[in-house]
């Protein structure tokens, strides 16, 4: 058995007990990376030398009592939209293909404080815009369960790296489902926390009001443990929230008695794959059998989440991505006449098609004469969606549904029809609009052997309820590794 079959928490215990050294753990990860990267392409950057040096420091830190946490010494991969001081941070874009930040994101600093060893930066859809990790400048990441399929996106690299057991856990980011959907496609567990729980400082923004960093891991225990490490109130992020509770692992109890679970009928209509539906409802049954009160209800407004999301996210993105202009950092075109030509050429050559598409749309909806009709309309719709969730959470502790309407599509099938691709985010997007926490937990395989994800959505600041439900469900599930790990 490979060391990489262990969960992050299991490895952490072995390191603490001096059964495994931090260097051994890191070396094991690099061995797997060297073996599998060619097939999966989870990483943009792998930093072996730096990581091995860090492993020695951490080992010493553990001995000196500096690193005492549960994941001290455990190798981790970080999505390439989080700044890492001294390490290339590209957002999988040509425009940042030479960008080495001089500062680290707060989430990464929290990892380092906990004794993490970063093995590399994971591939993603360019600027987190996409659902397949095919829009990366560094080539598509493949699904470890079947390399002819996409891993989902935009945190496809992080999810594939965990599924392929190239690392023990990873950080992803979720703007419209970018942690939960690829977690579902890759058969791993991914959690998007309540907006404001993990600092966005150093996360290269896509949609600032929607972006949230979260863990990608092998199981719920790992997810809760990682979240305890990365969640923090950060004075550098004005939208960071000072929470009352950070003890997410206290919810790891195999007990859902009395938990009220609502299943939105609207999530099980047209467009949902029959096999996905069957697996998700079977999972609901498991929770019911364990004592949860499960019932169906009408959430409403589900079909309006996607259009509202694309207006808001693209508008914010058009502004957030304006800073990439060839002046201060990143790519500058070689040949230009004058300032505006330099701007236009650098940006047109530096951004890929999907990014340009969203910047154009976002610029348009904010432009003179359209702001009220599109942008304000979307913000009003967002308010209505939030109200619908508020109403649902008056009755239920947890909302249960699929993470995605299908299992992972084949490579190359999605990008030609953007709207069809956007529709794949239908179950995840509204949690971002309303700021809610959500988790995707593997709940079986379809007939092609591709994983299905169960999504549990909680009310704001109620991660513990979804962790509890997810953990209880997980206890009944036979753990499956992707074929690539065997």
């Amino acid at each position, binding site marked *: 058995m490979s060391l990489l079959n262990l969960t992050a928490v299991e490895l952490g215990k072995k390191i603490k007990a001096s059964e495994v050294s931090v260097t051994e753990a890191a070396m094991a990860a690099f061995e797997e990376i060297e073996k599998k990267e060619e097939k999966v392409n989870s990483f943009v950057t792998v930093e072996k030398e730096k990581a091995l040096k860090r492993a020695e420091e951490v080992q010493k830190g553990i001995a000196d009592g500096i690193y005492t946490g549960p994941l001290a010494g455990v190798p981790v991969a970080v999505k390439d939209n989080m700044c890492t001081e001294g390490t290339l941070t590209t957002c999988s874009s040509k425009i940042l293909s030479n960008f080495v930040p001089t500062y680290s994101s707060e989430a990464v600093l929290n990892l380092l404080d906990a004794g993490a060893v970063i093995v590399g930066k994971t591939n993603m859809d360019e600027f987190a815009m996409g659902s397949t990790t095919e829009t990366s400048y560094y080539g598509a990441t493949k699904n470890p369960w079947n390399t002819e399929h996409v891993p989902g996106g935009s945190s496809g690299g992080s999810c594939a790296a965990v599924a392929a057991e190239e690392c023990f856990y990873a950080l992803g980011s979720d703007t419209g489902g970018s942690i939960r959907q690829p977690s579902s496609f890759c058969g791993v567990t991914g959690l998007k926390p309540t907006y404001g729980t993990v600092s966005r400082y150093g*996360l290269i923004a896509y949609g600032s009001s929607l972006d949230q960093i979260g863990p990608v891991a092998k199981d719920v225990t790992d997810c809760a443990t990682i979240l305890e490490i990365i969640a923090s109130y950060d004075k550098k992020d004005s939208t960071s929230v000072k929470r009352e509770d950070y003890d997410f692992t206290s919810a790891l109890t195999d007990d859902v008695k009395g938990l009220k679970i609502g299943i939105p009928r609207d999530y099980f209509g047209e467009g949902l794959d029959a096999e996905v539906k069957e697996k998700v409802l079977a999972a609901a049954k498991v929770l019911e059998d364990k004592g949860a009160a499960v019932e169906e209800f009408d959430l409403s407004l589900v079909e309006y989440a996607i259009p509202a999301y694309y207006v808001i996210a693209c508008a914010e993105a058009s502004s957030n991505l304006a800073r990439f202009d060839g002046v201060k950092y990143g790519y500058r075109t070689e040949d230009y006449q004058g300032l505006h030509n330099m701007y236009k050429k650098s940006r047109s050559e530096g951004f890929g098609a999907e990014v340009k598409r969203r910047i154009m749309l976002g610029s348009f909806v904010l432009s003179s004469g359209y702001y009220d009709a599109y942008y304000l309309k979307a913000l009003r719709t967002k308010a209505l969606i939030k109200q619908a969730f508020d109403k649902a959470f008056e009755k239920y502790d947890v909302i249960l549904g699929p993470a995605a309407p299908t299992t992972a599509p084949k490579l190359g099938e999605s990008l030609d029809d953007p709207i069809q691709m956007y529709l794949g985010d239908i179950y995840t997007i509204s949690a971002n609009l309303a700021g809610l926490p959500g988790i995707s937990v593997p709940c079986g395989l379809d007939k092609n052997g591709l994983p299905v994800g169960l999504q549990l959505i909680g009310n704001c600041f109620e991660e513990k309820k979804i962790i509890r439900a997810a953990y209880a469900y997980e206890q009944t599930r036979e753990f499956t590794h992707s074929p690539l790990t065997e």
Partner: protein
Amino acid sequence: MKQYETVIGLEVHVELATKTKIFCGCSTAFGGAENSHTCPVCTGMPGSLPVLNKKVVEYAVAVGLATNCTITQNCKFDRKNYFYPDNPQNYQISQLYLPICRNGGIEIETEEGGKKTVGIHEIHMEEDAGKLVHDEYGENSLVDFNRSGVPLIEIVSEPDMRSAEEVIAYLEKLRLIIQYLGASDCKLQEGSMRADVNLSIREVGTEEFGTRTEMKNLNSFKAIARAIEGERERQIDLLEAGEKVVQETRRWDDAKEYSYAMRSKEDAQDYRYFPEPDLVPVIISDEWLKEIKERQPELRTEKLERYKREFQIPDYDAGIITSNKHLADIFEETTAICNNPKKVSNWLMVETMRLLKEHEMEVEEIKFSPENLAKLIKLTDENQINSSVAKEVFEKIFDEDIDPEQYVEENGLRTVSDDGALRSTIEKVIAENPKSVEDYKSGKKKAIGFLVGQTMKAMQGKADPGMVNKILTELLQ
């Protein structure tokens, strides 16, 4: 030719006197090496986030209160999107939808001696841009982000002004208020106060406004006056020629006394404002508002009344001294040391003003310390130096802020009040000027002036003129 009326509104940008920038902990101090006062936030690095400087809100509220504005107790920031290399994020964090202050106004005195209120439409908070230096012969411009993120308030007036004189009266009044609040030093030359002029013309008697233009790059009152006159004439010429005024932004070149349109096809002037998602709303509670009100320093009118009451300074003098915060500060600090308000006022009103005029300096440029002026006043009070020596010493204080006691000592300027030494000099003067003595004795009393002058000359100015007069009169009897 038809009679035209000029309609003017101003957009005044004022750099606030905070120690740090509006959204990060970088210093706002002038004079650092290029890009030394920068960090990821004020250079638009990916992933950086703004956090609002509380002091900016307090200064903005203070200015709003002092200009009779309504404070928006729930205000928000918006992004203004446009590409320019001095704007590192290619958006400026500003306020459009809910600016912090609205609906104010200040009273100005018109040329005819009347009073008039200029309305303030709004005041909003925003960040300043970096600095561009243009290589005259090369193909490049150079960007320095030290000023990027320095806090600004933009004060937008109503189109209530009708002449350059009114504009300058408004600006002077505004500057005085802001300086008194300590919210900014408001130096036009250094750019800590900048005014953009919105100007249109209309036929006298019409209600409707004409098409306006916006003029930028005005960095002195004189430039503003010239630009207003130039733009007024340009617009009249257009209308008289049957052409139309185009709504546009123009840049004033004060050397050429000419403005030119700044617009190019690459600037759509469509700023795509939307609420800044990285900043949360600012709620100004009644308590906070009350606190800021209570901390509000004494403004000019109050100070003027107090000077008259407390120091018995004449109305005219008090008016001049309080017309500038810096001058009033010097007055108060000097008076606090020497306890002689009349003399302090006198030095400021007469000699200081004379020297400022002679050197073509602004009041803000006064460098001397209240301590040295107080020492000088003490020297004259004690008759240690006479008034002509005092004037000479003051010039030194004004130029180099010298210590007057030390200077008088080192240059041997102390008044000679030794009766014996004076008496022998005067005896000598009498002996050498028999004609004047004769004149005096024959009733031409004015002749004594010449003899006093001769004595002072012989004493190299260091004699007490009163004593000279007294001894002369005595000896001539």
